């Protein structure tokens, strides 16, 4: 459907390049991951990056997270405050707003049911790969 491609800004080659496909997939999950990292309390940018690395093996290009945080803040899902640190410079801490918690809850439900559905779909593919070994 050419119209759909235009609106989504996708290139036709996307499916032929697995790396790009994976990159797109990651990119789409970044917002949810950033929100999820703040579920238990406020963190500053670098802590969010480290948190995602240790808890989800999600290695982000470091520059990716900051514009995402700025966008989520403008959308009212996050708030931020500057906190003076012992490091000698203030750090910008982010925390979830009520709307952010609500959105993340919705995302978690949608994501889980989507992933479960896809896992069922991919089961035969993975089984076959397993048997071939």
């Amino acid at each position: 459907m050419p119209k759909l491609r235009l609106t989504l800004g996708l290139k036709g080659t996307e499916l032929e390049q697995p790396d790009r496909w994976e990159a797109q997939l990651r990119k789409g999950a970044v917002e949810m991951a950033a929100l999820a990292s703040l579920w238990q309390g406020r963190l500053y940018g670098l802590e969010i990056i480290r948190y995602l690395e240790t808890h989800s093996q999600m290695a982000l290009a470091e520059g990716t997270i900051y514009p995402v945080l700025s966008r989520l803040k403008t959308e009212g899902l996050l708030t931020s405050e500057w906190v003076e640190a012992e490091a000698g410079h203030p750090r910008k801490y982010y925390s979830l707003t009520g709307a952010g918690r609500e959105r993340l809850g919705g995302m978690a439900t949608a994501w889980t049911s989507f992933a479960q559905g896809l896992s069922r779909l991919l089961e035969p593919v993975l089984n076959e790969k397993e048997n071939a070994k």
Partner: protein
Amino acid sequence: MTMSTEMESYITTLRLHLAPLTLSEREEIVMEIVAHVRDSAEQSGATIESVLARLGPAEALADQYRDGLLIRRASRSFSPIVLLRATMRLATKSIAWVFVFFLSVFGYAFGAGLVIIAFAKMIIPSHAGAWVQDGRLVDFGAFVSGIPSSAHEVLGLWMIPLGLTAGSLTLLVTTFLIRKSLRVSRLVQSRL
């Protein structure tokens, strides 16, 4: 605290490319990035240069901020300049937006044109309006001259209310359409 030369030049480039943002937005971003670089270097023992390399080029970083803010600001704005700028930026990313951009330019120009003709009709009535000859439109505009004597004006002073109404409506519809397009594709575009 002193900054290394690499850091200074990175921040200068970042500031330069964040120019379309407001001063406070820009300085907040710069402060956060500076804090990130210092923390990252201190905590991991990496050099400033390697932390900057991991952040990616300052231009690319600025672009990610700029696109998002430009589009979000535009989707709340009524200013033709703000709206056209966002449309133009998006037109560099997708063909559909090139179409929206040209349509917007046309809409604004046509709407403004009608309003100008209406005002011109108040000031120089004999040089503004629509003239018809043998059932064909021979001239339509403001500040027109050299109209053939056989042509006759069709709208007369009606040009004033009609031009104002049709012109304002065109401008409104154009604005509405751009905002609608921005809102519809905002989620998708914000991921660009």
